[in-house]
């Protein structure tokens, strides 16, 4: 029946389309990849803030480095920069300090943010610089085909550790918490409302805000780790994560055996770097 009702039109666009560059879609993320869930949840939080009038979307800047997660800047309808590997936080620092009115958000993978860009992460957190950093952890360098990353759990197989990973993974929650920024939380794509809730909260805060999002990469992480099927990997991740109210940072260990604790590890209300800077440079 060739009738176009208003009801069917309503479903022809997605409610988040206004934040996306629809002409760039479809995206390049593989089937079963968790980045879409993460980005969708981040956008929903932005949408809530925009609708309640506490965020001007024209002030949002997305900064990304290199990697699968970094492709986010291709698809969002905000001002965005796709910079080089590991340097998204450095770029974001410049953008924020040049124009403190901006809401600067960095989205990157674990390799980008904690591996090659780890130094910038440390110093932005130390300064309590007023940006939000999302680190989407999929345990490998996924875009290059699944090599060992600083977050790869011990013993797992990757393309560069076909004999099993001998290295201890980096617990980025603990690292960033030690630098006492204003907000440190860990979410997971198996629990999208948590991502939205933490992002919404972070958007209303100043200072450095860090949100780690545990994610699934069946294509290159799962393939070698033995969870090639997207549903299997999703279920494995869901079985390993558990949500806790106000967890202690000592519970943040990135352990494949004893599980991964989600929650808000650090909530502080210290003045952010921009405010501190204005105190000394008038």
């Amino acid at each position, binding site marked *: 029946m060739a009738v176009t009702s208003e009801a069917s039109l309503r479903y022809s666009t997605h409610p988040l389309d206004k934040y996306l560059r629809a002409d760039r879609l479809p995206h390049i993320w593989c089937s079963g990849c968790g980045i879409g869930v993460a980005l969708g949840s981040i956008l929903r939080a932005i949408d809530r803030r925009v609708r309640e009038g506490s965020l001007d979307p024209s002030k949002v800047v997305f900064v990304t480095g290199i990697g699968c997660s970094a492709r986010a800047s291709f698809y969002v309808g905000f001002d965005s920069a796709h910079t080089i590997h590991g340097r998204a936080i450095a770029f974001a620092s410049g953008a924020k300090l040049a124009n403190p009115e901006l809401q600067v958000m960095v989205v990157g993978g674990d390799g980008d943010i904690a591996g*090659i860009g780890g130094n910038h992460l440390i110093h932005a957190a130390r300064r309590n610089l007023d940006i939000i950093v999302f680190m989407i952890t999929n345990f490998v360098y996924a875009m*290059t085909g699944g090599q060992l990353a600083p977050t790869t759990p011990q013993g797992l197989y990757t*393309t*560069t550790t076909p004999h099993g990973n001998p*290295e201890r993974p980096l617990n980025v929650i603990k690292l960033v918490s030690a630098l006492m920024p204003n907000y440190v939380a860990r979410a997971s794509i198996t629990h999208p409302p948590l991502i939205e809730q933490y992002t919404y909260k972070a958007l209303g805060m100043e200072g450095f805000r860090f949100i780690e999002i545990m994610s699934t990469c069946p294509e290159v992480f799962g393939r070698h780790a033995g969870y090639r099927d997207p549903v299997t990997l999703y279920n494995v991740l869901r079985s390993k994560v558990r949500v806790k109210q106000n967890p202690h940072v000592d519970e943040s260990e990135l352990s494949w055996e004893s599980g991964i604790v989600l929650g808000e590890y650090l909530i502080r209300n210290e003045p952010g770097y921009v405010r501190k800077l204005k105190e000394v440079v008038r």
Partner: protein
Amino acid sequence: MKHKVPLSGNSAVAYAVKAMDVDVVSAYPITPQTTIVEKIAEFVANGELDAKVIHVESEHSALSAAVGASATGARIFTASSSQGIALMYEIMFIASSMRLPIVMTIATRALSAPINIWNDHSDFMAVSDTGWVMMMAENNQEAHDDVVLAYRIAEDPRVLLPVATALDGFFMTHTIEPIEVISREEGLEFAPKKKTWYTLDPDNPVTMGALGDPNWYFEFKKQQYEALKNSRTVFDEAVKEFEKKFGRSYGPVEYFGNEDAEVVLVAMGHVSGNIKAFIEKTSAGNVGLLRVKLYRPFPEDLIVKHLENAEIVGVIDRALVPGSPYGGPLYSDVIVTLSKNNLSKKVVDFIAGLGGRPVTLGHIKNIVEKLEELKLKPQKDLPKEPLFVGVRE
């Protein structure tokens, strides 16, 4: 004839690393290099290669770890591309100045921005002033052989410099060709493992890379200059013995076509294959190809020898130096070489295939036609700027 195995360019490089019985491999993932190190990791896991693979956190660390490992006397390999090579830039000077015979393979790729993972020579050319011996292959067999040649040259006491071998990203790294694989026995016979360089030694402690004040720094640089220049003799000896042993012959340059061709193209890398195909297909007796394999030290004598009789020379550059008086880096090397030897030649620069755009037979035909046309004009009427091939205005 020896048995041939179908291998991608990257696998061919990895097999050569295995043949060289390398001790330490440090690398960071980057397209299109990554599968070299993945293959090496596989060899190590299978017990086929007794090496340590260091999973560093950036290319800067990859080459730094290589410098550290080489300073202990171990045989080192690393590989990278594009931004990775750019990040290594600082350490590339350290490796050559500390005279450490590290071998690195560059899977050539364009530099950002905009981000581009495809092939050109921007990364290779950007590091051509770092004091490394540099060579570029045309096919996968050569990419394989170059690694073996590289260790022989790097570790020669007359050289003691790092060597970069290069192969074109994707066009070669991810393309499969039949390869005669050099075995560990053959490889080590050709390039035996000997500690020929100054290393750290706990019994006689030394400090490496310490402050070289104005009283000393200059002398170090002069020695380094001489060593890189002298590496040419060692290269020539190495390829001669390589031919005797393996039957494949290489030179600092390769000339293809009639020696008395009026139009000569100068090129590097896989594009040379297309030019050869063009010359063969069109039976263009009037066109010759001079492929530069050894880029540093630049083989000036052979450039002069092969271009001396050309009416007009077209240089195909796959990198661009904006604002320079020359446009393309290879063109600049050719022009300086000819000028130093008082050869007044018509030389035209063509910038082609940046960011992975293929240089097709059609492009080569256009280049040759343009050269035939410019050949008839007086030298003063030649274009003063490079000509861009296959670009939208």
